[in-house]
């Protein structure tokens, strides 16, 4: 188990009111696998991601739980050591490749900086490694791309560069937050394929955050569905995409149009289901509160 999140409770405390955003979330990512974390916006996907990276907003408080990376709890680790893991052992691929890269630096500087900082390479070694990585993400003229600024590249190209940076320090975990949402479908396919290919080659584990169940079905080994800060179900994709799944997962599937089934009506997630889930979440909250009080 490379990443094991256990009973993670996070709340936002603003103006005297406490709003739970993660209610005892559990997440398990096996070594060398891709885990999809899927849900609607506001469901807590981003909070999980921020909690792992230690970039929760000021007003957020971690109330309980553990985030174990290779068996060590990130939350109990000294801040310095934790920062040391980021970039080297844990890397990040963001949704918007254009803003993930700094617009005033050439691709070469952005790639080599990371390598010199985290892998301790010298300038020439870093450049060689950067070229190697750009070739690995199927960029045809890596030497030329190195000289460019981010705005001179297309969105798909930028995402390739971001991916090559993420993989360049041979991280053991990559967190990909909606990495293809801003891209065209054909480019999305290329990027998904690229992530899969590099992941297989390097044996890295990936936490893949997305709202698109279609993407999950195609790239992930297992999936966790999150709603209102609670993981509703987890399991291998084969099971979740067969008939045995949570009503909410079914509701998400029913809401998305499919070009191969034009005549099925589109159903938004029903208010009744949302109400029921909210009730369950509150009950769950109270139960955990009682357990905490007991202990």
């Amino acid at each position, binding site marked *: 188990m490379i990443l094991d999140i256990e009973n993670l409770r996070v709340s936002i405390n603003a103006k005297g009111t406490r709003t739970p955003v993660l209610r005892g979330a559990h997440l398990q990512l096996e070594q060398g696998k891709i885990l999809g974390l899927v849900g609607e916006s506001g469901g807590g996907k981003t909070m999980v991601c921020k909690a792992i990276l230690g970039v929760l907003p000021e007003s957020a408080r971690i109330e309980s739980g553990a985030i174990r990376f290779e068996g060590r709890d990130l939350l109990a680790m000294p801040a310095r050591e934790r920062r040391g893991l980021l970039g080297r052992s844990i890397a990040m691929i963001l949704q918007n490749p254009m803003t993930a890269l700094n617009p005033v630096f050439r691709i070469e500087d952005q790639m080599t900086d990371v390598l010199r900082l985290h892998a301790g390479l010298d300038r020439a070694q870093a450049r060689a490694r950067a070229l190697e990585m750009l070739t690995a993400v199927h960029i045809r003229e890596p030497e030329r791309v190195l000289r460019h600024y981010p705005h*001179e*590249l297309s969105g798909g190209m930028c995402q390739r560069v971001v991916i090559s940076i993420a993989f360049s320090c041979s991280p053991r975990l990559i967190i990909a937050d909606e990495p293809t949402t801003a891209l065209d479908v*054909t480019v999305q*396919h290329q990027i998904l*394929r690229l992530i899969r290919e590099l992941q297989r080659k390097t044996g890295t584990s990936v936490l893949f955050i997305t709202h698109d169940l279609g993407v999950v079905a195609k790239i992930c080994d297992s999936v966790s569905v999150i709603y209102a800060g609670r993981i509703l179900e987890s399991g291998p994709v084969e099971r979740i*995409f067969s008939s045995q799944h949570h009503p909410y997962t079914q509701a998400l599937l029913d809401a998305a*149009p499919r*070009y191969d089934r034009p005549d099925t009506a589109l159903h938004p997630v029903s208010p009744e289901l949302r109400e029921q889930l909210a009730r369950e979440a509150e009950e769950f909250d109270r139960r955990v509160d009682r357990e905490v009080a007991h202990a």
Partner: protein
Amino acid sequence: MLEVENLHVALPDRGNKRVFGRPPLIEILKGIDLRVSAGETVGLVGESGSGKSTLARALLRLYPLSAGSIRFEGRDITNLDEHELRPLRARMQIVFQDSQSALNPRLTIGTALAEPFVSYGRASDSREALKLAAGLLEHVGLSASMAARYPHQLSGGQRQRVGIARAIALNPALVVADEIVSGLDVSVQAQVLDLLRRLRAETGMALVLISHDLSVVRALCERVVIMQHGVIVEAGPSETVFNSPQHPYTRKLLRAIPLPEVDPAWIDSVDIDEVAT
């Protein structure tokens, strides 16, 4: 109702601005032919750079045309000036992708929705216009109390409903919807698509639905037009195009859509295009 022939549009290339004089023009649309009948729903599909959003605006004469002609309800509108277009603008409307930027951040929803009634003299005074605006809000499934709010206080789905409400305020014959559900959660997307479907049935308006998502287009449109690099590569009834796509680009687009079914072969199925700069 809408007939577009050999439409060419070129826009200034701001990225290549020269020190002196005007920036060079780049041709975005290279000869588009399109017909939309009254009450029909046409899907316009393409990826970024295909020119679909430019076409949306050009159809409503929001961009200058460099060649070609547009006829709307039997009248040639190719060379009409803004003054002559004004009465026609009530008949053709657009809903924008970015609902945040499409609404003035400093006007309340009520004021924004009253605007079309005021500017076309459909309301005798501002109070009546606000009343009509409240009616519009309820028509698109929002509460009339939203009128007092500002755009940033609404969710993306709610803002998009406001955009739709504003477009249908004057009972147009044609509504162009430019990527209006991209960026919304699937559930909200289903609601907005459902709303469009209902309004189309109620008002008999024609709808040009622009989207990068073939599944969205398939759910709503009778006819579909596929664009790439400023030209139409394939067009026809949805049935035909989706069941037996002719153009390789259409086939590629369809294959690239990840359906929610486990299929380990999919990820390796299409060749990765090596992208050069």
